[in-house]
Every structure is written in structure tokens, then in C-alpha cells.
């Protein structure tokens, strides 16, 4: 196991991502889609992230690559100045 950071992001992915695997077994950069997150579930992850961090993802961020991994989600949140625990 390499990086296992961003506990808040992981908590949301765990709750809404409907992964086949346990999110704690994934490294920050591992693909959530490959771990079983459907595009349907990814929308719920996005909604939950917006709610938890009080941000709005602009349309140009609403694409598969941004929600591909814990790391890419964290990067997007940081770009939106979300208060994020690493």
C-alpha cells in the first residue's frame, strides 16, 4: 500500500461509490471505476462531495477523469479551495 490519504474523500467514496472493493485497499491514484464505481454512483459521490465541502463543481470539472481516483478528486477539491484534510 502506497498512499492512503484524504480520509474525508474516502469516507464519501465508501458511502456513495458502491465499490466492489474496500476503498481502504485502494491507493490514492487507483481507478475507482475499475474498482466498480458506476457512472450512476459517481454522480452520488459528486453530490455528496459538494454537500460535505460546500463547493460546486463547475461543468468543466464534471467529467470522468476528475472523479477517477481519490487523488484526482482531492486535486479538484483543492482547486476549489475546499478545506481538505490530506
Amino acid at each position, binding site marked *: 500500500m502506497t498512499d492512503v490519504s484524504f480520509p474525508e474523500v474516502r469516507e464519501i467514496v465508501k458511502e456513495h461509490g458502491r465499490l466492489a472493493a474496500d476503498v481502504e485497499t485502494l491507493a490514492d491514484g487507483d481507478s475507482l471505476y475499475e474498482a466498480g464505481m458506476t457512472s450512476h454512483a459517481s454522480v452520488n459521490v459528486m453530490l455528496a462531495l459538494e454537500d460535505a465541502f460546500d463547493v460546486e463543481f*463547475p461543468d*468543466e470539472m*464534471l467529467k470522468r477523469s476528475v472523479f477517477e481516483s481519490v487523488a484526482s478528486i482531492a486535486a479538484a477539491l483543492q482547486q476549489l479551495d475546499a478545506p481538505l484534510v490530506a
Partner: protein
Amino acid sequence: MTVDTDRDAAFLAGIAQIADEIAAANADDVDRNARFPQETFAALREQRALSALVPAEYGGAGVSFDAVAQACFELGRRCGASAMVYAMHQIQVATIVRHLDGSPWFEDYLRDLVVSQRLIASVTSEVGTGGDMSRSVAALTPGDGGMASFEKQAPTVSYGAYADDLLVTLRAHPDADAQVLVLAAKDQTTLEPTGTWDPLGMRGTCSPGYVVRATVPTEQVLGQPFPAISTESMVPISHLLWSHIWLGIATDAFDRARAFVRAAAKRAPGQPVPAAVKLSHVMTQLSLLRAEVHSSLDMWNGAADDREKLSTMAFALRMNNLKLAASEQAPVVCQQAMGVCGIVGFKNDTPFSIGRHLRDSMSASLMVANERIHQTNAQLLLIAKEV
């Protein structure tokens, strides 16, 4: 819609001639007998229109996407089934061109397509998952010597019997969920028919079900991940080209209604023509359809093949909405046009017949079920900001 090069103009002049002289002349027979529009495709092959979208570096005509969309419209005005076959083929070609990712095999394939004018059919739908092309049941099973094989229960394979190749969605491996696109040539494939083709409309697409079995070298698997292929190309291009056909069908229905009204007005100059008012109502509906189709093409062009932009949810929403709106609107226009013409529109053997248009346009909303797409859009609308 702009035609900005001589190449596009020459291509479209050729298409217009084929549409007016060959597709139109055979449309009723193609429809009545549910037969493949072979005269039209012989002419399209002769004009090398099957490789129109292949870039010049592979020997193709390098015609613009706009011009191909316009071609679908022109063919759609004369024979919906011919237009649909042409569009489906172009969707496959565009997908390969845009996602071959430097594969030498696919580059050679495109060169051969130009020379041999190969026709590519699509095997995405599947028994069990219907129009959900991202959830294949069938899978590619690795074999010996770099070969792989599959068996897919396909409910609808348009012009399967007339195609040279099939582009097939499959799971990448029996243990995988991930999807791939595989090109199977006819001589690598067997098609076992599972039914006949006697549908309400789009009869000339000749689209019965088959069990499709093939063994192919693994280099015939398109390398890029399917979600990218699907969102950046297959889905938007399908919706854009299909909707141009539906607009073409509706436009011809309107033109027939207008011809009917003019004929009535000429018979009794100065007398009121009640149908003329109805025609004005039809024009309103047709212009809504046209606006949706053209503005969606503008949006596609505006994205200038920025793949990141094409992969946003806002873009997907818009392209899905095009399919929903156009597929619902085209039959409305056709039905109202029939209302203008009355009984001569209802009869199949008058210059004002609109039965074929109405029947063909009714395939639109179930060619990938609209409810399925509404479900997707409902989800995207929860999060997308600008629509």
C-alpha cells in the same frame, strides 16, 4: 451548416445526385419489400462515399463531419433506410478514425476501406441489456496464437448480411467488466439468424437478430478504453447523424404537405385553402426540430474536438437531449404533415404519401430506448450546472 471546402461541396453534390436519382427512385420498393438499398450503396461505393470520413493520410476523402451530417440529411429526405445504413457505417468509421491510437492494424484497415469501400455494421445492442451498450454480457475469450473469440446474442444487426465487417462491443475478458470494441471481418465471423425482419419502419435497414460468433487476432481490438470512445465519439456522433436523418425525413414530409397545399391552391385560385393554415402549424414544429439539430451540431463544432470538453456531463446531457428531442419531434412533424394531406397522405401510392415517413420516424425513439436515455439525463441533471 457550412460547407467550406471544394472537397465537401463536391462530395455533397455527388450525394445529392444519388439521393435524388437513385435513393428516391427505389425508396418505395426498398420499403415495401424490406430489402437492402443495393442500388444506392453501389452508387455510394462508386463515389467512394463510404470512406468520406477517412483522413487523407490513409487515402480517404477527408470530408468534414458537417458534410457527412448534411449527407445523412439529404439521403434521409429521399430514403430513410438508406440514410440510416449510411449513418451507421459512418459512425463506425468515425469511431475507428478517432480512437485507433496509432494502431498499425487499424491504419491499414482504413487504407483498405478506402480501396475496397468496405461497409461496417454495428453490434452494440444485446439480448439481456438492450440498448445499454456499456454493459455487455458477451466477452472476448483469449485463445491460442494471439487470437480471441466471442459469441454475442445480437437482437438487431442492421445490414448484417450485407456488411463486410462488424464493429462489436464486448467485455474485454470473461472475468472483466471493462468493455472493448472489436472489429470482426465477415470471413472471420458467422452470423446465425435468430429471426426475421418485418418491422413497421426503417425496413430497408434489414436488421434481424443473429448469434454472432467470431475468432479474430487481438490486434483487431480497438485499444482505447471504451468509456472514452463512447462519450467522445460513438454516442454524440450517433445522435448527431441520426437526428440529421430524422430531420431529413420530417423535411420531406413537410415538403409533400406543402406540395399538396400548392396543388390545392392552384386548382382554385383565390379560394381559401384550409390546409394552408395547418401547413403553417407544421412549419412551426419542423423549425423546432431543425433548430435543435443544427444547434447541437454547432455545439459539437464549437467544442473543436477538445476531448476533455466532449467528456463533460454538460456535453453528454446536451447530446442525449438532441436524441430525445429529435426522435420525439420528427414523428410529430410527419403526423401533422399527413393531417395536411388527408387521405392522399394516408394512401401509399400518391405523390403526397407520408406513411413511410411516419413509420420510419417512429423507429427513432426506440433506437436506444428514450426512457433509458431520460434515465441517464435525469441523473446527470442532478449535478450538471449549465444545460
